[in-house]
């Protein structure tokens, strides 16, 4: 009796184990298929940032997909100004656009005098204020 029940349970165990795998695999297959349709352009337009407009501009170019802006040394683009937070804002590339996002900085970030509350798309020649520090963005278009 125990043996028969045990055998049935073992068969059920294997059946449901493989049902799990089959469903997971099917889901993977579906996701691969739908991803292929939506795969976008992978090339990224590179970014040139220039700070301290006027006296001695600091110009830095970036080829990555994320640029962290702030006062602390672990930032990609360092703005040495007491009104800039240690991790003030970031630039990131998404949906074929460069975006600017304020990282809840103390003194806020401004574009054209308007405080940036949520990620916004940036374009060539945009000027941002991070606290009192100002920097300018140049976007180099993708070479065809």
């Amino acid at each position, binding site marked *: 009796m125990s043996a028969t029940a045990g055998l049935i349970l073992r068969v059920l165990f294997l059946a449901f*184990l493989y049902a799990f795998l089959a469903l997971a695999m099917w889901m993977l297959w579906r996701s691969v298929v739908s991803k292929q349709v939506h795969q976008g352009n992978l090339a990224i337009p590179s970014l040139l940032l220039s700070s301290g407009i006027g006296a001695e501009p600091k110009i830095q170019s970036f080829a990555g997909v994320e640029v962290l802006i702030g006062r602390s040394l672990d930032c990609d683009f360092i703005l040495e100004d007491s009104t800039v937070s240690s991790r003030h804002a970031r630039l990131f590339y998404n949906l074929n656009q460069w975006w600017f996002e304020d990282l809840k900085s103390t003194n806020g970030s401004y574009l054209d005098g308007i405080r940036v509350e949520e990620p916004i798309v940036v374009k060539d020649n945009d000027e941002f204020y991070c606290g009192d520090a100002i920097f300018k963005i140049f976007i180099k278009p993708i070479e065809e």
Partner: protein
Amino acid sequence: MSAKAATRLHSKQPRLLALAALFLFFQTAALSLANGTRIHSETLQLDWLVFVPYFVWLGGILVLHKAVRRKLPNRDPWIFPTFTALVGWGLLSVWRLSPSLGQKQLGWFLVGCALFWLGLNTNRLSRLLKRYKYVWLLIGLLLIGLTFIVGVNPTGAGPRLWLEAFGFYFQPSEPLKLLMIVYLAAFFADQIKPNITLLGSVLPTLIVTATAGFLLIGQRDLGTASLFICLYVLMLTVTTQKRRFLWLIPLAGIVAGLIGYFVFDVVRVRIDIWLDPWAQASGNAYQLVQAQIAIAAGGLAGTGPGLGSPLFIPVAVSDFIFPAVAEETGLLGSSALILLMLILVVRGISIAQSTKTTFGRYLAFGIASYFGLQTFFIVAGNLGLLPLTGVTFPFFSYGGSSLVTNLIAVMLLLKISSELAAEPLPEPVRQPYRWVAAIFLILFILVIAASSWLAIIRQEELLAKPENPRWAVYDRYSPRGRILSQSGEELAITTGEIGSYKREVLIPSLSNTIGYTSGLYGQDGLELSQYQWLRGYSGRSYDTLWKYQMFYNQPPPGVDIKLNINASLQTTADALLGEEKGAVVLLNATTGEIYAMASHPYYDANTLTENWEQLSQDADAPLVNRITQATYPLGTLVNSLGLATYYNWPQSAAGALPVAAGGEDEFCQAASTAYGEELNGYQSGCEAAALALIQNLDPVVFLDQLESFGLFSAPAFSLRTSAPGEKPDPAVIQTKPMSALEIQATPLQMALIAASITNDGLLPSPRLRNTYLAEDGQWTAFREGVFPVRVIESGAMDRLRTSLIGNDEAFWFQSGHAQTRDGKILTWYIGGTTEDWVATPLAIAVAIESNAPDLAQTIGSSLLSLFATE
């Protein structure tokens, strides 16, 4: 992925979770029935305790699931269900191997769940991790450093890799793996920039990895050290986008292996057992060999939860849990397990490709690689594909630090995955990720292939290895067949209750022939050679075998076999030999059927365990079956053999048959007084006669004749026989005729030669087995296609019998004696029936390890004549 497609996939998640809960429930239920199944219980006998890990797991998972659903609505839909299945299966497996460790593991699981939950509710977790990367790393390294000072090993021996607090053990190298990944991900996310040279950007990580590596090597935790190196290289590959770094892994592996081989004993031992585990199967490679046998025992569908014997693998619960799972769930189960791991790894890498932040990307990739590498390292080690590294099998291996770390790693992966961007963060070159994913796919397929190789192709071979101790378990749950005498008296039977069956030998003096079966000391005698029959593998229908295998993972009740032994002749032989050391074997000269075989001193198989120590050290070697394993010098038995040669090849002799008399020793004297005939010196074993005879013979012809008699080859027999003696060089016999007396023979070989004398030159094969009880209830003969072989012309044997005829014309015999190496006298007697004998033709050989010619003759003639009255 479009939002719609993503939602559709997300909606399948509860279904996956339900499937995991169901298959684990069935496994738990099957496990709870295992004890009842083993003893063939008629009713449903459930072990309720087994449900404890299941419900604790279920509770923990439900709480986590709720939190995950609320906190991470956009999470990856595979990670959580797959993790759920793996961790549940792991908890159950540990419980099955050791309920007490299973309880502890459950405790750790709950700790892990709490940390998982806490992590989910820490909003800025990834930022905290990134910002304080050096702090985390330092903590990890400090803890490792601490093991140098206050390290312990819970088992009391071996590397001291643990820290102890309040009775709990903690292995810092486990969290260090994760901390290391966090550090590397954070560092690479910040540092890899076009305007910094490659060396400048990787140098700090190289230093940190090397420091951790050396600390671990110093602690002799070489498995974790090699894991670190591989992890580092993989992360370097994707962060620098340079595929060529991948070649560093095999390269470093070979270099480290070579250096380690000559510097570290541990490494040398592990590489040696990897290269040839069977050379040290009972030593260093014991665990590995047992693991391979366990996988073979699982076969395709497994023995069933709780029905296998994975505990034969020492400490299966930690490093060797994969073979333990493979034994009970089979290749189907173990492959599914590897596939579950593969899903986790592939999804991890996939998350890395589609996440929003660089740190998240590298962290996800690092965690996926950590699961993948660790799984491959340990499973490949278990299977013998790689040297053993002693890393843990994620979610399965017993160990709190490892389990908690795994849970946290999964939580991090889930958190990263929920930050998935609608459009993935682009990476200029995606290939390194695909490469790593492809490598893991290939490695895991390799692991499945290697499991199949062990479980299917090599199954039969591995299970038949003497290192496989499962028969000892079968013996307790399934009765062996009885061993009976020719007329049906029980010689050996199985007694006791199912679960504690014992073997009992009813005529203890036959122990050397019947042998023993003991979980401690193995098997011997007929119990070993007739295992296939007694255990029921032979002589049962395929249906019966399949049914027992499938339902109980046991062989069916064994098949009864009848021997040719005649119980009363056997008892007489034992009584006649008494306290003397020696051997008697009586057989049918035509068929080779053995009617009695006594080897003294003997042991009692029923008290083997109690007396093993004494028996195995006894100078009189009671464990040896003297009939087949004692090699005695022929001594003056060469007389019969020489006479036979002379009668067969008279033309090759130097002259006429020398008259055998006039020697100085008592055997020659006895001959002349007792019989007075010229040939009787040969019959009584006169040494002078032997010498004269050998000198008269062509040594080449003489030795060839001995070879035909089978003196230099072991007879095919159902008992272990000693290695046959070497055929001497004829030149030696020529120059030293007396050396012919030192040629070795077993009593069985001499009995067979005696049979050929009785049987007109036809030498039979010895047969101990008579019939077996087939499933239809009929006693059926064993199919044995060995027929008597002509070894000499019948005329020669006819003359020999006449020369050796005794007072009673129905019998022939020759007495002999020899000097053993330690200077003792050995008495021989061979004899048989003549054509005046009306019943079954017989032959006998007696060897006594003292000077007892009268006793030998009494035993020989009594047994021969007794047969007539039987």
